Structure formats: C-alpha cells, structure tokens
C-alpha cells in the first residue's frame, strides 16, 4: 500500500514513527529536514501522486486546533477542527484537498500528545458547556487507522473529557479499533454517503455505500453514536430517485432513534481550488456540470442547489426529527 515513507529528522526516534516503519519493512525510507521540502514544492502533480501516495511522518509545531468555519456544526456553540493528517486514502473527485494541496502524499503529524494538550486546554475553557472537535476535515478520520492508530490514541483522551465531543468523519469500514473498545459516549462516528451510482462515479477507492452502512450498523449495535453526512449532494439526472432510494436504504437499516445527527451539505468549492481541480481532470463530467461561480465560490447554480437541498431536507425529515438535522450553512 505504502512504498515510500519520508521521515523528518526530528521525529526519527519517535515511538510512533518506529511503530509505523515497522509495519512497512519493504518501504523506502527517506530522511528529510522538514516536511515542506517534500509536500510543498510547486513541481508536483496531485493526480500522478494519487497512483502511489507516499507517507510523510512529521512534527507539527503550532495551530494544533482551529475554530471550525461558521455554520459548521452539529449542535454545539463551540466548534473546532484539527488535522493530525493531511490528505486521504480515497480519491473523491469533488474533494477540495485536490485543489488545496500540491501533493497527494499523506502527511501525518505524529506528535499526537501536542494535539491532546490543546484539546484539553480548549475543553477546560468552558466547563459544563459542550465543545465539539472535528477530526475529518483534511482527511478521512478512520481510513488510515491501522497505520496511524489515531482513534486508539484520541478516543482515550475524550473518554476523560465528558464535555468535549469528537466527530470522526469517514467513508471507511476500518472500525476494528472501535469495536475492540467500550463505546465512548462523547464520540460521533459520522459516515458520509452519496447514492450508489454517484459513489461509483466520483468516490474512487472508497468502500461502497452498502459496506459503509453495514459498518455504521455494527457500531450502532455496539452502542456507538453514529452520525450521517449527506455532504456534498451531487447532481445527476435522476437525482431525486437516487437520493430517495439512498435515504430509504440508510434509514431502514439504522436505528433512527439512536442516531446522533444527520447533516446535509451542498457541493461548494473556492474558485481557485475548482480551477486547479478541473485542470487536473479536464475530462471530468462533474466539473462540466451546471455550476456557477459567485463571490469566489463555485457551486451548483442557485436554483438547482436550492432544489437539491430542499428535496433532500424534506426527505430526511420524513425519517429524522428536526432537532437531529443540521444543514451545513457554510
């Protein structure tokens, strides 16, 4: 899976680095001074690197946890996100990471304890008030779990911070770590879904939605809080039939009363990201669709976007009470 690993000089002796290198005895291991030497140069191509992404093991020094964008949330007033990992195992054509980074290599910050400290500090700022931390903003929270052991490390932290909640956002079925531990009540495992035909078209390398659903069901059966994320909503001819079928399938297989939250989001990208993505994949039909650019953001044309969101909202609310529904307002 990973045949090249770059290791920053400063973390060569880090126990997490040694453990990861031990998993890939055949990988070429290349030393570097700072990850930016590998991750940031201009002469790189995200599309080509997606063929064989390398893993970069590095140390983060600041900005461990950042305020979440306005409108991003599932019920709390205080919302933060953090990125222990940049980039994703999967290859979703709509994903903004393709437009944000020069490199498709996985950049893993191994100093988890520094993230822990910052999360503890922020949670302690307002005792008794819920603070939500989102971990799947720049990556899939669980897809690389066998390598990163991220959930294993962070969920023990959250077990001791009852007012702090963490969302693990994923399309993965890597739930072994979670199944092996007692459910942590303030953890939401949030699975992203698009209709089967859309997933087959634009979510390359991901588990099929039916498999994600089975994983969500298993977690729910074991007592974990599960969330559902219909984000982004993607347009195709027949979209109503496809989304109606998806909602029927998902809500018939999960116990709705025990769902933590359901959110819905539009397909939206900063214009500069969109330009970069469509030049990486000029043949991509998704990018030739009925899109419009308004105030620096590319999205479906206003009336179409409204129709998509209205329809999905109406359908979702047939199954889910309003207090569990969180349309994304970014």
């Amino acid at each position, binding site marked *: 899976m990973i045949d090249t690993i770059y290791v920053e000089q400063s973390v060569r002796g880090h126990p997490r680095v040694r453990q990861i290198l031990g998993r890939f005895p055949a990988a*070429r291991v290349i030393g570097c001074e700072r990850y930016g*030497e590998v991750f940031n140069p201009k002469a790189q191509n995200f599309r080509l690197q997606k063929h064989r992404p390398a893993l970069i093991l590095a140390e983060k020094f600041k900005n461990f946890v950042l305020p979440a964008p306005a409108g991003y949330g599932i019920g709390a007033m205080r919302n933060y996100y953090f990125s222990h990992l940049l980039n994703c195992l999967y290859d979703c054509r709509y994903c903004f990471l393709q437009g944000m980074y020069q490199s498709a290599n996985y950049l893993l910050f191994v100093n988890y304890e520094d993230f822990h400290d910052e999360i503890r500090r922020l949670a302690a700022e307002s005792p008794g008030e819920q603070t939500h931390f989102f971990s799947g903003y720049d990556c899939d929270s669980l897809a690389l779990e066998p390598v990163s052991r991220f959930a294993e490390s962070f969920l023990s932290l959250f077990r001791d911070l009852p007012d702090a909640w963490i969302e693990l956002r994923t399309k993965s079925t890597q739930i072994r770590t979670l199944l092996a531990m007692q459910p942590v009540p303030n953890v939401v495992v949030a699975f992203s879904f698009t209709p089967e035909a859309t997933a087959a078209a634009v979510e390359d390398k991901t588990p099929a939605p039916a498999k994600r659903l089975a994983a969500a069901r298993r977690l729910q059966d074991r007592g974990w809080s599960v969330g559902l994320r219909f984000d982004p909503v993607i347009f195709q001819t027949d979209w109503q039939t496809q989304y109606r079928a998806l909602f029927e399938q998902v809500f018939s297989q999960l116990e709705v009363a025990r769902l933590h939250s359901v959110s819905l989001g539009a397909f939206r990208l900063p214009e500069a990201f969109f330009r970069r993505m469509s030049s990486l994949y000029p*043949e991509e039909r998704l990018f030739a669709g009925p899109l419009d650019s308004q105030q620096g953001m590319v999205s479906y044309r206003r009336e179409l976007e409204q129709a998509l969101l209205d329809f999905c909202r109406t359908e979702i609310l047939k199954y889910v009470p309003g207090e569990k529904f969180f349309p994304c307002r970014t």
Partner: protein
Amino acid sequence: MPPSVNRMSGCNGGFVHFIVALPAEAKPLVSHYRLKRRPGDDAFAIFEKEGISLTVSGIGKAATANAIGYTQVLYGKRRNSVWLNIGVAGHHAAPLGSAWIGHKITDAETGRRWYPGICFRTHCPSAEIRTVAQPETEYALDCLYDMEASAFAESACRFSTGELVHCIKVISDNRESVIWDIDPSRVSAYVEGAIGIILHTKQALRHLAAELTPLPEVDTAPWTARWHFTAQQRLQLEKLLRRWRVSSGDRVLPDPPNLERSRQVLAWLDGLIAALPVHLPPAP
C-alpha cells in the same frame, strides 16, 4: 456544416528527453532506440526519433542545466515531458554495474535538496544522489555521488512535474574500484547492462505523462468568423465548447439557429448543454 469543436493542438504529453553527460553513456541508448543524430549546427550532440530525444550535455552542473534549457526550447517548449538523466555514479560499496533510481538529490555545494516522486513500480533499488563538483573518491556517506543530478532536477522541474523527472545511475566506481580506472567502453557496458531498467522506467513514466496530455483545444474560429465576440465572450465561448465536449461525450454540435448576436449564441449553447442528461460515468 456546424462549426466543429476540436482542433489538433499538436501537443504530445508523452515526449521523453534523455540527458547524459558523456558520449559513452549515450552510445547504448542511441543504439537501443536507434536514434539518429540531428543534422545541423546544434550546441550539443542531440540524437532523436519520434517521441524521444537524447542530449549529450558534457560533464557538470552548468553543462547539464544548459543542455536541458536548449532541449526544451528545441522541442517546442512542451509541458510535462518525461526527463531522464542516465549516467554513472560512485558509491562506497554498491556493486559495479548496479542501477539505482534517485529518491533524493542533494547538491553538495549549496545543500539544496529535491525529492523525485516515484509514482510507479520500480525495477531497481533507490538511493540518495549527492551531486559534487569534483570526482568523489572518499565515498564518505551512504549515497551515490555524481556530478549532474542536482542541476538536472532543478532545471527539468522548471518544465515538467517532478514525478516525470528522474535520474537512473549505474555504479561505475566504489572503494574497491576507483574512479580513475574507468574508461569509455566500461561506461558504455555499465549503461548497456541497465537498459532493461531504463526501458521499464521510460515506459512507466510515459504512461503517467499520458494522463497529463491536455484535451485538444476547442476551435472557436468558425464561431468567431460568423459572429463578433468580445474578448470576454470568447473566453465564455471556449468554456462552453469545452463543457459541451465533456458533457456530451464529444458529440457533434447541432447547427446553430439563425442568431444575430453573439450573446444569443452563448445563451443557445448554454441552453443546449443544460438540456443534456447528466450521467457521471463509473470511475475506470
């Protein structure tokens, strides 16, 4: 006849440029690929055939950088061609004749580093290459020593993406067999011995480069001949024609109706595209 969408761009994403320092390194490649010497008065010895060029740069960083710039301009300033630096190098212990691909290139003089992205299955081991100004005889570090790779990486990455820019080095000297013993025939023999690896690398990179071949440009000429478009409208027209091509699966456009103004033409095209069914095909 409706105006057409396509026009041949003349761009070939899979062009391969070999850069070698010595005629003895060039010889096996020229022979294997049956390259022909370019006639005329070039600044470097250049051999070629369709889709491949080989430039003999001479020894050292300056010669290499110049050769790459010359080659890039000579072959039409193509973006995202494959660039391969083939040559001999020293190592403290690696066996003579063994071939290596560079995964990190360090300029010993400046300390600058490059990390060529290896996005394909290699047929040889990889190593750091340190580029030095004078032949290395101490082999103090666990790396390959050469005299061109850093200039090669720096210059070629101006014209192509790093994943398509690679160095393959064949060991010509080590602590057991010093650099002063090398003669041209041995250099040729070492490179000859690595032909299989070079061939595989070239093929793999060409395959990757093909992914970056731009779509043919859209042809706006028949449209601009019939209607007057402002500069802004021309951009809109190009964008719409590209969208039509991708969304329709490259179908021929129907005849435009009798429209007077360019604004109406753009609206007609936009409506035509909006009426197309949107089916996202399964990922290959």
